């Protein structure tokens, strides 16, 4: 598999190889001549506005060093950044793009399949990180095995797997998704969807769940954060890290372990029952999910996990008054305390809220923009353009320097333009005064420093 891994980039700093993708390296005059390490870390901080992935490292640093010792007051226009060429990186036949998100197990980045020209997402797992998580490696291996077997429109598809033994990294190449239902919820003011939109997602969730159950897989961690959306609006159930497959010849679906997210666990798990019917666990969490995406609340809450489980265990909850029939009835059926009395998939399918398309009451919630990009353009493209069309001499000598002020300026504009896009109806007047600056996009790769 090692042969699959090749690096177009000639020189790779150790940091970069570590996966801390230095889309741009910035440094400034304050630190020049000082300790190299701090220089790197603080520089990362100053680029936070685009590349948020290093925030954690920075926090660590804060504790260790008394930063004030290093700070001198410098006017913003004295700090100069230089634009750096984006380096094209290949992993197997895939061209690396920008960061999409970060999970507990590692980063997720965009990729382009250079043969099929298909947009993909890659989950990069580092063995070092995995070992720190209890059962990390084991769970990942199990999940991969499971994902290989599954093929359904509403279940995430594992397209390819690559390993780099030298770097101790694993690349799981998946279908490209724009984000999770949770991300979409978070972008709305009251954390819920209009009913017609929730209905569309719920139908797909049930389709995917029916498939999983037919393959004898109990997901055990259904929640908005584990439901991804593609650009076409297709829902994909993901994260089968705690899923359980019941034996082909098992008489029923009895399970013994429940380890999903607490707020979505059914009373039988909250009460610590020794065994419980597995398929009904997913029904419950789908019920909580439906409750959550239609009301913006959770049926059960608690300050800590004990309070939460206590409240779930009692099974008392209320549905906001705004929720009318038949949705109220469906939620009640799915959040039935006793697993035997809880709806099954068939009952959900035949339920009148399920079969009826709700009328379109309010505007569809659109995908939130990714780092200011409303259209979710392919992030691999700039790398390819730089690699094939940019003359290296040109870019080194031309105006590739920016002052801090210019950076802030372009950032501010970027934010404004986002706001403008959000209310594009009214914003035409506001936005007419200026053009969306091109520089703020090219600013993305800012490497080594020059003193002004």
């Amino acid at each position, binding site marked *: 598999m090692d042969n699959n891994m090749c690096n177009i980039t000639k020189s790779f700093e150790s940091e970069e190889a570590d996966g801390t993708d230095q889309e741009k390296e910035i440094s400034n005059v304050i630190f020049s001549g000082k300790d190299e390490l701090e220089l790197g870390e603080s520089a990362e901080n100053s680029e936070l506005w685009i590349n948020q992935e290093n925030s954690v490292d920075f926090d660590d640093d804060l504790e260790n060093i008394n930063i004030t010792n290093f700070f001198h007051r410098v006017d913003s226009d004295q700090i100069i950044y230089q634009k750096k060429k984006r380096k094209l990186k290949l992993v197997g036949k895939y061209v690396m793009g920008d960061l999409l998100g970060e999970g507990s197990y590692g980063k997720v980045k965009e990729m382009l399949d250079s043969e099929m020209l298909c947009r993909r997402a890659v989950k990069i797992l580092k063995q070092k990180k995995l070992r720190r998580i209890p059962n990390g490696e084991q769970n990942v291996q199990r999940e991969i095995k499971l994902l290989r*077997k599954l093929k359904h429109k509403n279940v995430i598809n594992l397209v390819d797997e690559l390993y780099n033994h030298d770097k101790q990294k694993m690349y799981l190449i998946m279908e490209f998704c724009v984000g999770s239902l949770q991300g979409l919820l978070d972008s709305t003011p009251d954390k819920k969807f209009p009913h017609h939109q929730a209905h569309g997602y719920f139908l797909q969730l049930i389709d995917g769940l029916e498939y999983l159950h037919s393959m004898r897989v109990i997901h055990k961690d259904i929640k908005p954060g584990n439901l991804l959306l593609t650009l076409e609006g297709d829902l994909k159930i993901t994260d089968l890290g705690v899923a359980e497959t*019941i034996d*082909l*010849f098992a008489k029923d679906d009895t399970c013994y372990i429940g380890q999903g997210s607490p707020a979505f666990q059914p009373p039988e798990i909250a009460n610590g029952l020794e065994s419980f019917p597995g398929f009904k666990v997913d029904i419950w969490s789908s019920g909580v999910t439906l409750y959550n995406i239609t009301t913006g609340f959770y049926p059960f809450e608690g300050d800590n996990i004990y309070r939460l489980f206590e409240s779930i265990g009692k099974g008392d909850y209320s549905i906001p008054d705004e929720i009318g029939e038949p949705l109220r009835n469906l939620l009640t059926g799915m959040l039935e305390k006793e697993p035997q009395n809880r709806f099954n*998939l068939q009952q959900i399918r035949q339920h009148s809220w399920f079969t009826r*398309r709700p009328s379109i009451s309010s505007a569809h919630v659109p995908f939130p923009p990714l780092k200011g990009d409303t259209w979710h353009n392919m992030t691999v493209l700039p790398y390819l353009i730089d690699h094939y069309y940019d003359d290296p001499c040109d870019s080194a000598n031309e105006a590739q320097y920016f002052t801090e002020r210019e950076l802030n300026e372009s950032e501010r504009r970027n934010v404004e333009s986002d706001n403008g896009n959000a209310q594009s109806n009214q914003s035409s007047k506001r936005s007419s005064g200026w053009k969306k600056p091109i520089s703020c996009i090219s600013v993305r790769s800012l490497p080594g420093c020059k003193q002004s």
Partner: protein
Amino acid sequence: MPLFGKSQKGPADVVKALKEAVNSLEKGDKKAEKAQEDVSKNLVLIKNMLYGTSDAEPQADIIVAQLAQELYNSNLLLLLIQNLNRIDFEGKKDVAQVFNNILRRQIGTRSPTVEYICTKSEILFTLMTGYEHQEIALNCGTMLRECARYEALAKIMLYSDDFYNFFRYVEVSTFDIASDAFSTFKELLTRHKLLCADFLEMNYDKVFTHYQRLLNSENYVTRRQSLKLLGELLLDRHNFTVMTRYISNPDNLKLMMNMLKERSRNIQFEAFHVFKVFVANPNKPKPILDILLRNQEKLVEFLVRFHTDRAEDEQFNDEKAYLIRQIRELKPIPGH
């Protein structure tokens, strides 16, 4: 009333005109050519009411409701399908589009067209026989699959005698028709899990006798597709009872063992996925155990050399190793 051009025809008029034209087409009298034109024209009118055109929006709900009601009352849907072969090429496609749109219509939680077709199941049976006529087979196929999405309609089709004609349709010599028929067949057997499981259980003997013929077909594609579908059906948790029954029959085991030795590697591979269920069964009936015991050594030897080039496929290798171990450790039931 518009000032210029012809006055707009209401749904009732269009449906009436179309019905007359189809009747006249059916009789095949002298006016056939004129009738053909009228059919096409009125079909386009109806289609535009439902879908709209580049210049016009679809008609308001009230007009569509009227149209649907007229279609039910006049029995025009059935008439159109019965005469589908007489309608010209574009007209056939229009019929399918109109049919599918009307079928999806909802009032609240009700699907009036589905209810209507339930009372007029002849529509479904006429569509199914459509696979016997090359020129309309694919049009009927799209309408059938749209029908199969509704459990009530799928049920009527599954439980009809005509369903068993599919075992013939999936084998016809025209490849595109055979594949279209197979996808409808598969849809009917897999779409509505509980309905399908009940159907297979209740009609086990009849279905699997017919199915056996597909597995023994002369046609490579039929053999491979049906074997793959069999694997999917048996491994689906909903069909647990059917699976237990299937793997208790020694004839089925013999068939799979023969298919493991087929010339085609793809068929061997699909057969492996059915064969493994027989071996993994913790409660093997005596006839099954006897066959496995009789072939114990040969099977182990065979499996060790079976598809050794699939080194990359971890799951397959795990399963293969498991089967080999299972077969090696087989012991006769004491007392026999």
